[in-house]
């Protein structure tokens, strides 16, 4: 009788080259997905080519011509709709999605908790105070800075809040993440009640403020895109540079230290970077929830927890996710639109619960 060949050797070990190849393929797919979703999103709108076509219809060939810069003589208003409305809007959605997903990934690593999100240290509540204040006082309508007043104020209050929370969570140069987390919750609750109070007395500004609080890309402009994209690009690069250090941090501060990583400076750098890019995103678009929580989580399930791949993959996925969500926000009840934050929470909440249950039932870590 012949012995049966051993089968288990097939699954033994890890083939380094094929892991690297698989990661590369993921990134190529995500970049392709980003390009495709951006392109389709630019075609969606009330005048078409994908949309109801009211009050007039813009055919596909005209849209393609405008996008790819053909010499043909197209209507000035169509060119404006594509290049001054839709393109900056889609690009802004991509930049914000990338920023939030990257910031969420960094925060989850700093807090060593997959439930952390970019708003955990008070960015959103801080920005809300500034934005609501700007809306109520009405400075957003003054001529001097015009539409940039609200983002500027929101950005400032967001960073002031984060600095306050950070100071509360730091003792003698050491960042205590649990204290930081609780300080964030307490400060957010306090500022949230201030926002509620202001809304209560806001009167006719009420609808606009709510729209901002739920997050929307309706005010997208090239300026907004440039600011957010610059902040996001620098921030994402920094997070990526520290991606192996973040891996080490997830095994605990003692282990990180032993691997030559200084946990204190790493935590501080990550908190500052995540706060700045989140604040930039929130300042221009309002509080868009769930992206920074769900995207890193979802991507981690697919590509694993190694930040070398997780940071770029989550960043790209965040961009794609918000482009699609914003397109849906524009299309669902066109010609009016929903705040995109409602879409992300509507899709994100149940999906998140699904992941949570699935992982609990199969006994996996979250």
């Amino acid at each position, binding site marked *: 009788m012949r012995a049966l060949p051993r089968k288990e050797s097939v699954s033994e070990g890890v083939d380094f080259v094929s*892991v690297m190849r698989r990661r590369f393929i993921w990134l190529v797919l995500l970049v392709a997905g980003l390009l495709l979703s951006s392109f389709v999103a630019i075609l969606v709108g009330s005048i078409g080519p994908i949309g109801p076509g009211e009050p007039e219809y813009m055919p596909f060939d005209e849209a393609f011509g405008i996008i790819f810069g053909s010499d043909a003589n197209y209507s000035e208003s169509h060119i404006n709709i594509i290049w001054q409305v839709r393109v900056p809007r889609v690009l802004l959605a991509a930049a914000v999605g990338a920023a939030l997903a990257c910031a969420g990934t960094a925060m989850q690593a700093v807090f060593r908790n997959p439930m952390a999100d970019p708003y955990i240290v008070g960015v959103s509540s801080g920005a809300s105070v500034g934005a609501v204040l700007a809306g109520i006082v009405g400075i957003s309508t003054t001529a001097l800075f015009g539409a940039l007043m609200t983002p500027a104020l929101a950005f400032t209050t967001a960073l002031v809040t984060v600095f306050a929370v950070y100071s509360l969570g730091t003792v003698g140069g050491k960042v205590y993440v649990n204290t930081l987390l609780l300080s964030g919750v307490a400060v957010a609750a306090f500022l949230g009640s201030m926002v509620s109070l202001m809304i209560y007395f806001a009167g006719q500004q009420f609808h606009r403020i709510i729209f901002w609080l739920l997050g929307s890309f309706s005010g997208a402009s090239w300026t907004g895109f440039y600011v957010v994209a610059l902040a996001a690009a620098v921030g994402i690069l920094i997070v990526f540079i*520290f991606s192996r250090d973040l*891996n080490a941090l997830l095994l605990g501060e003692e*282990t990180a230290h032993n691997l030559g*990583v200084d946990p204190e400076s790493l935590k501080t750098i990550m908190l500052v970077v995540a706060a700045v890019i989140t604040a930039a995103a929130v300042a221009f678009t309002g509080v868009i929830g769930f992206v920074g929580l769900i995207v890193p989580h979802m991507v981690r399930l697919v590509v694993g927890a190694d930040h070398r791949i997780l940071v770029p993959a989550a960043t790209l996925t965040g961009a794609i996710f918000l482009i699609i969500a914003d397109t849906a926000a524009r299309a669902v009840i066109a010609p009016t639109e929903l705040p995109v934050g409602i879409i992300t929470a509507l899709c994100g909440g149940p999906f998140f619960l699904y992941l949570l249950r699935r992982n609990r039932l199969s006994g996996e*870590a979250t």
Partner: protein
Amino acid sequence: MKLAVRNLSYSFGEKRVLRNVELEVDSGEFLGLMGPNGSGKTTLLRCVMNYLRSDPGSILIDGRPIQEMPPEDLAKTFAVVPQSSSTDFTFSAYDIVMMGRIPHRSNRLAGASKKDADAVQSAMERTDTWKFAGRPFFALSGGERQRVVIARAIAQSPKALLLDEPTVYLDINGQLEVMDLIRSLNKKEGITVISVLHDVNMAARYCDRIALLSNGWLEAIGPPAEVLRPETIQSVYGVDVVVRKDPFTNAVYVMPHSTLSTAPRHGGRVHILCGGGVGGPLMKALLDAGFGVSTGVLNVLDSDFENAKDLHVPTVAEMPFAAISDSAHLENLRLIKEADFVVVSPFPVGPGNLKNMEAAKAALEMGKRLLVLRPETGRTVDFVGGKADGIVKDLISSGAIPLCSSDEMVREITREGVRK
């Protein structure tokens, strides 16, 4: 690599955790750090890895203060294995081991290279973890996980391993698995090992030297046989122990006595006639129950003689392998006279110790309450042609109480109480 700790003190705020610790560790040595909880073992380890910053110059590697070493150099010198490692994130075992290569990257942007991949694979093969390299870290058993963490430490290619109770959460199988792995790294690759260990016998078995800490002071340092003395352990841990030599390895091993007070609470004394080791459990059970105990007559080198000595039980002793002399017999009878109970244990009876059976008879005649423990087989181990069994039957028919276990004996004696 030579590690020197010079006059190291460390405080958490007002609380002093280490006081003037001085020690040296040579290249290739296996040093165990021991001491009760809170004695400063883990703090010492964390100072050595510079996670806790101590005074400059208090810790030197080859004469160089660690406080002045760049973090990457330190990371290439020491690899740390904590008590247990866990993460809520879905790293594979491979990812975890790959983290050991972080100190070896050429710059921040550099990812893992083929060289890193080779180092990881070789570390995982040596720890027998390569077969589950692709599995999620959290899905592994405690022993497997600890081996993966050791693989990470090896991938770090350090000069020394620093371990903090690496086996504390493992079952006996996992403990041996991990300790044997560490020892083979120490002996075969010459990696210096400094490990906090809580198990004295584990330490005695694996360490070249043991450093015993107590309340922040270095109480003793040296080979296990020198450090693990009953007096030292009593003063550091506050428990009574017996130290013996393992007959196969010659390593010392330590057996703790019960921490219950063994001071007689009942004021009475039980005299046990025993030999050949059957008396040990009886002495211990009676001492734990709070009775005074004496024994007799025992030959020096008899295991019950050792038991009695370890338990500080008064004994009538006879020369090794000699028959019981008249003087020893009389001394035995004297102890019986002073005792409140006499227990006949199921000791093997031969011509040399037949006098102990006579002593039992004498006890009955003195009016002592005599308890006879029957052997589990029902028959006395008898080298005197059935004589012993006959005596036991006589004893029972003349009023001795037959019993089957030491529990029953303790119950009987407690129930009857000590006659005042």
